């Protein structure tokens, strides 16, 4: 049985994994870059090893350093979290070679799913629907013929691509040639691989994914769906489960296909099959994520399971504890990703020192966090500082609870997307559960409206009063300055004095 796990990650996912380890009496090893000495995951772990300078490529992405840290501390397993090396089959293979348990699927499964064309071929063979299209490299002439067969709109994509690079949508004949050529040159320059393929373009699809769980004995179950269509530039912002567009039949059908997909690559551990779903509930395999996902907590809340514990059990070579018939969604869960970013300034990242932080608590509230008051968010990594997850008996209650939770979340010192998230919870498309991946674009004006709630004048006056009172008290304090080296700042002292006695 695994006794000590090195978490090859940072931030909230590192802390989240450690929480489950602690509950299983498994010792934890944090790794950290030089910029992360004060990150919560270092403070939380039983042991901590510095693995290099701040840039990821010199620390969190250096396999040799991670393996050395595991050796030094005697960790018998590595959990990769998400991002960084979590989908690196090289890392998984190296772990196996070094006799360290990799908490994830086999390197072979990762590779088959990692390459888009191989994944697509495998899915077709397994009987999982894929977007109509052609998966091998095409000349311009061949492309024209294929497009005629599929019908508009279509998309040309770089096989090795990702994140919108090397992609072009084509809506009519005249666009084919230019789109083909630019996609090809972008693919060559970005990925050094000019292979293109052509697919039917699904306009503003729903992004719906199925969590699956497999063990080393060939058992695979699905843990139902997550609706992830609230995306901005392919970045998920809000996720919910169940999906408001899902039906019992469709769930059963897609779930079975997700299981087939996972079985086709002998998948073991936790993974996600992402589907595109059009408005007629036609669904197509998009890709498989061979790791835990950011939005895994909403599945945990509606099913009341702990996915990290299940991952560790599978890594311990135990058969699945759960059977498909045990899996019943109850109630509704929503997750909001809190990011240090300036929504009013083109979502520019906003790192900095957290001056004051109040996290929401109470019934139905889960916060997967890692920041704290006084912590400086480093400039080197992802701007996501935590996740708010609520559960309630119905979708309508869950939305109301999320509003309450967003109201309670207070942070100063950096800018965050809290206001923006709050507006999503008021957008009528979201409230009605009628939205797809076009949601953010369609509602952008409403979501960024500055004159959004309440009288602007009244709240402006409140802001003026707060600043003005602080200014006045500063003047007073400077006039009566005392040497004061108590740890509690004079501001707090003032608060106390003011409340309990009199100014």
């Amino acid at each position: 049985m695994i006794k000590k796990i090195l978490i090859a990650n940072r931030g909230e996912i590192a802390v989240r994994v450690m929480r489950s380890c602690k509950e299983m009496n498994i010792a934890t090893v944090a790794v950290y870059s030089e910029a992360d000495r004060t990150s919560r995951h270092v403070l939380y772990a039983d042991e901590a090893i510095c693995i290099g300078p701040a840039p990821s490529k010199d620390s969190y992405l250096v396999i040799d350093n991670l393996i050395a840290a595991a050796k030094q501390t005697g960790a018998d397993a590595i959990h990769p979290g998400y991002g960084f090396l979590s989908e690196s089959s090289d890392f998984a293979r190296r772990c196996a070679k070094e006799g360290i348990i990799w908490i994830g699927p086999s390197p072979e499964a990762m590779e088959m799913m990692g390459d888009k064309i191989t994944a697509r071929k495998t899915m077709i063979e397994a009987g999982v629907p894929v977007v109509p299209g052609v998966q091998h490299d095409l000349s311009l002439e061949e492309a024209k013929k294929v497009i005629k067969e599929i019908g508009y709109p279509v998309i040309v994509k770089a096989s090795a691509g990702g994140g919108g690079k090397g992609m072009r949508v084509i809506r009519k004949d005249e666009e084919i040639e230019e789109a083909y050529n630019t996609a090809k040159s972008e693919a060559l320059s970005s990925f050094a691989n000019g292979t293109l393929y052509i697919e039917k373009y699904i306009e503003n699809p729903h992004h719906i994914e199925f969590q699956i769980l497999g063990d080393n004995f060939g058992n695979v179950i699905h843990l139902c769906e997550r609706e992830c269509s609230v995306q901005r530039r392919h970045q998920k912002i809000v996720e919910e489960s169940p999906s408001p567009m899902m039906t019992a039949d469709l769930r059963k059908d897609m779930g079975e296909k997700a299981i087939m997909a996972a079985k086709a690559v002998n998948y073991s551990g936790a993974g996600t099959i992402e589907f595109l779903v059009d408005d007629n509930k036609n669904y197509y395999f998009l890709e498989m994520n061979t790791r835990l996902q950011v939005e895994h907590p909403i599945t945990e809340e509606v099913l009341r399971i702990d996915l990290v514990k299940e991952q560790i059990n599978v890594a311990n070579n135990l058969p699945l504890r759960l059977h498909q018939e045990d899996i019943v969604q109850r109630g509704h869960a929503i997750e909001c990703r809190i990011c240090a970013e300036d929504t009013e300034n083109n979502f520019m990242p906003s790192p900095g020192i957290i001056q004051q932080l109040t996290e929401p608590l109470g019934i139905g509230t889960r916060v997967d966090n890692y920041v704290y008051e006084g912590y400086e968010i480093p400039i080197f990594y992802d701007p996501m500082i935590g996740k708010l997850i609520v559960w309630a008996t119905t979708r309508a209650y869950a939305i109301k609870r999320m509003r309450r939770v967003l109201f309670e979340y207070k942070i100063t010192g950096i800018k965050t997307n809290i206001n923006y998230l709050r507006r999503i919870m008021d957008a009528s498309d979201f409230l009605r559960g009628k939205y797809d991946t076009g949601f953010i674009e369609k509602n952008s004006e409403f979501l960024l409206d500055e004159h959004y709630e309440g009288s602007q004048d009244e709240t402006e006056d409140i802001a003026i009063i707060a600043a003005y009172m602080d200014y006045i008290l500063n003047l007073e304090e400077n006039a009566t300055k005392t040497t004061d080296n108590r740890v509690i700042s004079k501001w707090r002292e003032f608060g106390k004095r003011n409340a309990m006695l009199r100014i």
Partner: protein
Amino acid sequence: MEVHIGGRIANVELISKDGNNVVIRIDDKEYNLDVVMPEAGVCSILHNSKSYNAEYKRKDKSYIVNTQFHSFPVEIVDSQAKYLRNRKKEDVDEQQDRIFSPMPGKIVKVLVEKGQEMHAGDAVVVVEAMKMQSEYKVKRDCKIKDILIAEGDTIDGNQTLVTLE
């Protein structure tokens, strides 16, 4: 005293202060308030029994104040600040002579060429930092003097990317 909030200039006067009880006039509106600071950078205001909270971050006499789902820049313009403001105005007025990123990152795209004429708001480069892409724009009409980076370059925080004239 003048307090600037967004585009608005408010006239603010402290009428009286007795313990938590504060009377303030903002423009022609008089507020009778109960004000306490329960925590560093947090202000609780009771007005006609309504409970308001504001959190703020201060830098000299400039504040960022968050109220319920709003964030305001507030500036206290006392006589000293007024003096400095006036001096500054004479000195430089929105002088921008370079494009830089406050964070280290990677150049994703260069959208301009040397010598190109720019209008206020035109984008110059796209930088990827903290896994996000951001466009950097010029704040005034100007001309691209020099381009010091190329697509794909890794840059440091505050490094000059493009010079303007």
